């Protein structure tokens, strides 16, 4: 995508990348970088992320342990690399389910309108009436701690933003000439919704999903921090921050490096959201 769009002039691609859409380029590079790290973690990590070396506890960053070690003697660098697998998974699965549920609900509500719309919108109002985090914590508390509970909770709570976005788009688009044309040509409701309205209505949601990924990532980290998400000793950035906080004055590296990882991935998504928005011509 990045190279294809910009390869026609000799020095064109370089200029295009930075001058054309810097946010998209930087965002994509950061996220792609973490993806590569996640995929190759077993190959590039110098240590086993849960191996405890009792002889090397709380080592400060150095040649042997670039990011130092934690209070159990685990290598922080290896744990940050392995953590990318979990955290990318969290941001992907935590977004895709709400996206799909929300887009379908929004499309149906916007397209059919009337009673269907009213009913679905009231459900959204009910979900909205509870504070986001409280509702999520309650659901996780009922289902029991763990990542799958977190995904279910995200899906149950997170879809409303997508539903509202897609619904408002569909409400506008269904009166556009091409949608009326589709009706005049005798197409069925599912075809009009799926093939004509949705592909045009979800652009805004795609952009939003990138900034949503940031929130999900931070939520996932927060939930793990509270002990309701990923369980120790699995390497996950949120847990690492939580576990390291007792040592923040004596061994800052235990919290700092996973913290930096969270922030950089979040920034990557956020740049990607900006860049995609510009690229697709969507204004949020």
């Amino acid at each position, binding site marked *: 995508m990045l190279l294809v769009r910009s390869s026609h002039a000799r020095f064109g691609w370089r200029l295009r990348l930075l001058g054309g859409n810097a946010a998209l380029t930087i965002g994509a590079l950061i996220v792609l970088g973490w993806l590569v790290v996640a995929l190759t973690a077993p190959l590039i990590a110098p240590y086993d992320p849960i191996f405890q070396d009792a002889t090397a506890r709380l080592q400060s960053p150095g040649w042997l342990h670039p990011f130092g070690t934690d209070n159990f003697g685990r290598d922080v660098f290896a744990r940050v690399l392995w953590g990318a697998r979990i955290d990318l998974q969290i941001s992907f699965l935590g977004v895709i389910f709400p996206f799909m549920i929300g887009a379908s609900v929004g499309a149906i509500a916007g397209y059919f309108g009337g009673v269907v719309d009213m009913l679905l919108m009231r459900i959204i109002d009910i979900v909205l009436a509870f504070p986001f985090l409280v509702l999520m914590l309650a659901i996780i508390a009922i289902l029991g701690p763990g990542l799958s509970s977190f995904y279910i909770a995200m899906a149950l709570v997170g879809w409303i933003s997508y539903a509202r976005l897609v619904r408002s788009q569909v409400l506008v688009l269904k009166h556009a000439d*091409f949608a009326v*044309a*589709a009706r005049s040509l005798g197409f069925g409701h599912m*075809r009009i919704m799926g093939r004509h309205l949705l592909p045009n209505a979800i652009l805004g949601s795609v952009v939003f999903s990138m900034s949503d990924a940031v929130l999900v990532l931070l939520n996932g980290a927060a939930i793990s921090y509270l002990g309701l998400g990923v369980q120790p000793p699995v390497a996950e950035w949120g847990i690492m921050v939580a576990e390291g906080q007792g040592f923040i004055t004596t061994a800052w590296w235990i919290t700092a490096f996973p913290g930096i990882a969270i922030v950089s991935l979040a920034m990557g998504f956020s740049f990607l959201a900006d860049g995609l928005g510009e690229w697709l011509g969507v204004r949020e």
Partner: protein
Amino acid sequence: MNATKTNRKPLLDIEDLSVEFKVAGGLVPWKRRVLRAVNGVTLSVHAGETLGIVGESGSGKSTLGRAVLRLGELTAGKVLFEGTDMAKATPSDLARLRRATAMIFQDPYNALNPRLTVGEAIGEVLRVHRKVPAGDVKARVSELLQMVGLAPELAARKPSGLSGGQCQRIGIARALAVEPRLIIADECVAALDVSVQGQIINLLIELRERMGVALIFIAHDLALVRRLCDRVAVMYLGRVVEEGPTAEVFAAPRHPYTASLLRAIPEIDPDRPLSSELLPGDPPSPLNLPRGCAFHPRCALAEARCAEDPPPPLRRRGDHLSACLLDNPT
């Protein structure tokens, strides 16, 4: 309905069709007001015939077109298409209507899904209606594109890379894919350049001759209507005020509104100055229809009785109908 063609049943028979919208009121938001967009319209179209519907904005001409194809709501009246009242259509009646009619829109870009290629857009119609076997879709798309004067290679392109005229031709090709017996063209050249308008009008004339498709041509441009249409209906604020053979209506309009519309056409003639008999004011809001003949507040000939309800009915003289009290058919 039509005096000269009594032997043949019309393809489309619109009887007393009304479309009303409920609009939230001005000062009292809970008190909804009724907007009468189309008000008791009776018209008919025979197979292969071209009917022009002209009027200013707010005359209800587009609403009428959409209601006839059941793309918009209708409040009362009948729409007999090949004998079936589509106002009370069952789903299978509607499916039949869709297979026999098509619409061409004003904005050529907006009428095409921006994410589908030209080939996909036209092919979709062929597939949904099973017009040709799946293997022949591509060939038929090429054939349709050539029929509207486009290169078959355009099938791979998306609308955003094409000109307005090309997009309008694609809209027409897509309409033809249905193999319709009736096409409603809603201001289909208004958004195009002058030099391209003529190309599209010629295409419509050609298709009509080759395929015998009936056409309802909704437009505000009277000069184009005169060139294209067999009959013309003039609408003002939701009512048909005059209807008849195009040549007759243009040569001897019987309703003062038609006459002033004709006077206002800017013709290319450097020696013909702007008409001094200008119609005053703007058309009133359809939310607030004047009593009696809706045209009387702007009419130079209006008398006291013109402001009395009910509005004057359409009266026939030969093939030519008009709804003016001062016009005495004998």
